[in-house]
């Protein structure tokens, strides 16, 4: 059991009994074991106190809970489901599951611009942030280091079995290297591209100097363009530093998100169509929606509130920039690791 689970579960019980906590954890393990990639984002929604798009998922989670505790009442116990779903995701991140980056991005993106009143357990968002800042990632060491090929032992005794063993070790070492090298090269490529972009500070999408854009638009454009340059999700740990450099003096400026969206050229906003994951990428969804005919500031705000349970208000430019950046990464991670 993850050490924090009893504390997480405390949210939904005034005085939880240890056998109930143990049964709930067993259910968490079952849900994790059966977690299909296509359900990951819906589990993220559940962890955020929302209903999943695939509604049967609630029944599946309830069935797992009832399997481990026949007295579990089931039904729409939204907060308890949020804790269970969040714990499943925490377990996936803890186990360095191949989908952990997408999970972390989903949890962080979903938490931005949340409408007041939709309280959800925040511990999982904190865990996701830790994951994205590199505390739990990069088990293989520096992204730029190349491991040495394990050479055959020259002093190995003659004879076929010993030689075969040495050859097998060499093959394994070369295979690992061949898998690692493209990733390493991608990271180097990504760093070079980002540095060149940072030096030029010329918008790739709009073909104008970034400095010529109003603060709000600059925040959106830099976040999107830096996200586009990421080749290996979840990108460099210094993302806020990169964005701060890109935004310059305007990084700490407060921007009205709706104004920022509508001040951006419509052709640019149209690039976001079909790129959103609805409520998990509130900013991307709003930008895409704003490009639709007949949308104005008021109707966009109302739509965000009703369809996304999001409240688009004022925020600091760098936070808006980071938000759109992470949403781009979530879309990439979703396409690559969630199918």
């Amino acid at each position, binding site marked *: 059991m993850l050490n924090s689970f009893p504390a997480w579960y405390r949210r939904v019980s005034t005085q939880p009994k240890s056998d109930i906590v143990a049964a709930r954890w067993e259910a968490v393990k079952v849900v994790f074991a059966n977690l299909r990639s296509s359900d990951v984002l819906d589990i993220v929604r559940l962890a955020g106190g929302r209903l999943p798009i695939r509604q049967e998922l609630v029944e599946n989670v309830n069935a797992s809970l009832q399997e481990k505790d026949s007295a579990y009442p089931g039904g729409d116990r939204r907060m308890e489901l949020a804790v269970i779903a969040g714990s499943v995701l925490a377990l996936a991140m803890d186990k360095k599951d191949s989908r952990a980056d997408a999970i972390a991005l989903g949890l962080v993106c979903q938490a931005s611009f949340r409408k007041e009143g939709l309280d959800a357990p925040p511990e999982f968002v904190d865990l996701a942030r830790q994951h994205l800042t590199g*505390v739990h990632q990069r088990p293989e060491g520096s992204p730029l280091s190349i491991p040495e090929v394990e050479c055959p032992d020259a002093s190995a005794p003659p004879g076929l079995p010993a030689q075969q063993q040495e050859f097998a070790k060499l093959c394994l070492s070369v295979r690992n290297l061949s898998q690692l090298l493209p990733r390493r090269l991608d990271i180097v490529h990504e760093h070079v591209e980002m540095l060149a972009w940072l030096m030029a500070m010329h918008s790739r999408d709009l073909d104008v100097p970034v400095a010529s854009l109003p603060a709000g638009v600059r925040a959106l454009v830099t976040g999107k363009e830096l996200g586009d340059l990421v080749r290996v999700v979840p990108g460099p740990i210094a993302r806020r*530093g990169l964005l701060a450099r890109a935004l310059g003096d305007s990084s700490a400026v407060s921007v009205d998100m709706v104004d920022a969206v509508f001040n951006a050229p419509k052709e640019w906003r149209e690039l976001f169509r079909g790129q959103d994951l609805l409520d998990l990428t509130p900013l991307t969804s709003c930008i895409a929606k704003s490009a639709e005919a007949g949308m104005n500031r008021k109707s966009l705000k109302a739509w965000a509130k009703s369809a996304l349970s999001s409240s688009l208000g004022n925020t600091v430019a760098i936070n808006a920039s980071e938000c759109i950046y992470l949403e781009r990464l979530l879309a990439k991670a979703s396409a690559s690791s969630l199918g």
Partner: protein
Amino acid sequence: MTTPGGVSTDQSPATTETEVAESGLVARPQIQLGLSESMGQAEADTLLAAGPARLIVVAGAEECGKTTLLAALFDLFQVSPIAGVRFGGSRTLVGFERRCHGARIASDALRMTTPRTPISEGVRFLHLRVEVNGSPLRDLLISDISGELFRHVRDHASEAQKLAVVGRADHLAIVLDGRSLVDPAKRTTVVTDARVLVRSLVEEGTLEAATRLQLVVSKLDLLMAAGPQLEEQARTLVRVLERELKAMGFPSALHFVAARPDSPTPEIGFGYNLDGLLEAWVSRSSRYVTAPEQPKRAAPTSEFERLLAISDQDV
């Protein structure tokens, strides 16, 4: 069943925003009424499991005014919203009514009274559903626990497990009896008891840092009636307690209230300052706040990471 006034008398969930939006009606939250006396832990757990709810534990000695505070809050809601907070229903209406009855003309009592909460009831909760400035309805579970139980915990730290519910509390409101605070023979005991209670709860691991503390001085009318010198001494004692709790890692907010003054005046009327307390209870709980600061990051492994991670700190 729904009355023309929008009052629902059954226990079914209120109409959801989606349903309202689909029906084309103007969103207007239904008021839920309930007929329970109070809620036990199982019912409270069901409510906590269903959605976001605030759990408030009101602590204090016998007859310090804990129950009166809750009754007055309920009575205030009968008149108008309190500090932008509207009454949205309750599953324990009967319990509230019973606690309010002694203060009503219908009781034929000569003076306003509040029934004492017996220790045999253990940990019970009253429920309020409220709407805060137009946001979705929110549940408040407010404990009604006998002062005797708090005395037991204070006297024997090992008894703190009986108050394990404090470990889930979003708010712990410690009520200090204003009448005793201006009594030179009792005032030190009042403050010491509060300090010992918090210490017992902390030592037994029952009180967590995520719980917000409020020091609620009740019966402000009696405190002020004792004269400026005694009042000032009482306020000083409370401020010292506040500093001590802060030093223990539990910063608290001070509230001077008069839930049901014996002789209301234009300055101190019925439910005086309860709005501030309610506002604190419905505000965003520290249990539902994500860490605003950037979490600890891995050590940079290249100049690319190092330079930009350092510049990040300037933002």
